[in-house]
């Protein structure tokens, strides 16, 4: 059935069952690469997106449940040419080994900065505690989020 979604500021219509996880609609119907499948069980955070500005695990969110809500993916934050401060900070800090977790980390961090524009390191650690990085890039990721927060303050 046709479902209408607001993704990254645009209204999109997709033909999917309402119980389809949002993740597959974003990746396959809307061809957005940001949100990633890691576990399908809310455990890893790689699929994190924002729904009305708050972090949500798209792997278990039925697409039918978010009709009429604003969904933001990594692509909605910024682009290569005009990156969001978080994206720029992650690039500047080279905050990746494989980088598969990065989208989820950035989206969880965006949720944090929405709630708390000037977080301390402890706040960043707490906000990202449920996002897994298997490579061990945590320290760079924390530095990147703090850098973005400082950047935000200057804008």
């Amino acid at each position, binding site marked *: 059935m046709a479902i209408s979604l607001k993704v990254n500021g645009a209204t999109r219509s997709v033909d999917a069952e309402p119980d389809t996880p949002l993740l597959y609609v974003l990746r396959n119907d809307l061809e957005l690469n940001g949100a990633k499948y*890691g576990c399908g069980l809310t455990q890893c955070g790689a699929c994190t997106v924002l729904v009305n500005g708050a972090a949500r695990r798209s792997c278990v969110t039925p697409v039918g449940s978010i009709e009429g809500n604003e969904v933001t993916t*990594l692509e909605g934050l910024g682009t*290569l040419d005009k*990156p969001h401060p978080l994206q720029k900070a992650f690039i500047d800090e080279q905050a990746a080994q*494989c980088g598969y977790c990065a989208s989820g980390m950035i989206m969880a961090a965006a949720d944090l900065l929405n709630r708390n524009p000037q977080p301390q390191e402890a706040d960043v650690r707490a906000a990202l505690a449920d996002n897994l990085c*298997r490579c061990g890039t945590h320290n760079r990721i924390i530095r990147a989020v703090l850098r973005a927060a400082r950047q935000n303050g200057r804008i």
Partner: protein
Amino acid sequence: MDAPRLTRRDFTAALGGILSFSLVPKVALVQEPARLPGSLQTNRTLDAWLRINADGSVTVFTGKVELGQGIVTALAQIAAEELEVPLGRVTMISGDTGRTPNEGQTAGSQSIEQSGTALRMAGAEVRALLIGLAARKLGVSADTLKVTDGVIHAPDGRKVGYGELTAETDLKREATAKVPPKPAAQYKIVGKSAPRIDIPAKMTGGAAFVQDLRLPGMVHGRVVRPPRYGARLDSFDEARVKAMPGVIAVVRDGSFLGVVARREEQAINARLVLIEFAKWSGGSELPDPAKMYEQLMSLRSEDRVIGEKDAPVPVGAKVLEATYHRPYQAHAAIAPSCAVAELKDGKLTVWTHSQGVFPLRATIARALGLQPRDIRCIHAEGPGCYGHNGADDAAFDAAMLARAVNGRPVRLQWMRDDEFKWEPYGPAMTMKVKGAVAGGRVVGWTFDVWSQSHNMRPGDPDGINLMGSWYLADAKRPGPARHAAQPNGAGDRNAITLYDFPRQRTTHHLIMENPVRTSALRTLGAYANVFAIESFMDELAAAAGIDPVAFRLAHIKDERERAVIEAVAKAAAWKPAAAASAMRATRPWPPTLR
């Protein structure tokens, strides 16, 4: 799309059996070609590595692949440095059986040594060739010319860009490795941290991973694995699954079971129904965790003494013994393995995050009865792997599903539980150490390590190390466990102590059975062996009543080893006396005294 080429190594591999037993007298063969450095030895033409494009850009080909270690950027730096072009003018092509050199696996921290060396030497040689061409064109002597940013300058101000020389540049020639590479003192790009080429796309939603590949008409696959290693599929409800929405094909071959559907969630749902109604029999149980290490040590092993030094143990020496264990360890990549495969006009293309596209191609060919020339394996990044995980198996699974859907590309992704249950784990290990101290010195040292194989990758000459193939009706078999030569070793990596003891004996017990599927995980057996050695050195130091840092230094001859211990002690602000008493106060002592 380039047609896959038969490389030298494939050719040798294909004829390996014939050549080994050939009765052709050696004198009839052409002279052995000169030994070339790094991977130039096995991929000998310059154009296998480098191409200069008409716009002055450079395309670099490497058989090594990006696993999150930054190697593709590092190799680009090396090529740019030697060619004297800006890093931004280099395009990297990596790990593609249709386009790149065959450099085996990207593993064991060998990429700079093998691929980097080849690119360094090839880069220097191509630069010299281009300068030679420019010299002829300008009518000046080559040694008067200077290169800056890919432009060759003559003293009189005339200049020629690399791009203008492409028509005359013939890189289809064997490398000589005779042109000296730049001295390190002249480096402008190498030795500095360059931003990684792959990171911007990963931070902005670019197509960065094999998971992000979307081909026209692509459909989605999932596989169903047995409930136990080795179980046979007796029956399943094919009709029920075929009637499910979106299902295009149910693929069964022996005990291999998979499904292809139009949409990804449809394939996932179909997999669940396949699992629900599938009936399996037989198979093996996993080791009992409570008795696992004893069970493993009781299995058939091939024992090899890898280090031995003899000297008498003085009478009255204090003898200690300790046993250390390492459990099985999952690679546990942040995402399960994935591959995209397409079978069109008899040609199979597989996009894979394998660490070795050439060994993978050769092994898929053997598993499916295809010719390597009819298969192209192309590397696309996956989540960090830390060794041999499910990547190669997923590539095989995708190929199996692609064969069933007539030309349509299939994106196959394992589910989370597929990866945890079926990827090859880093082996469980047992290290038994026995030591003797007398007069404050170690006078006897016996180290025994038991481990399954740390290398069951595709590319084995006898077996087919692709898990899905073991479940086909015409079931394939994995290769046997094999010893790896020291000093690299495998389960016995770093098992031979670097400390200088008058008497030592190190034995590697390679377990030949596989109660749990195992293969390569970061540094193989090294850290377990080092952990055992260093832990036991602490025990011996305490038995001798000597500060553990001083005790170690007393057993080191090599200056570099000494520097490591001293650096660690300094970084830890090591205080000898306090540390020694604290250790005795807080730990049960002795561990096992005989």
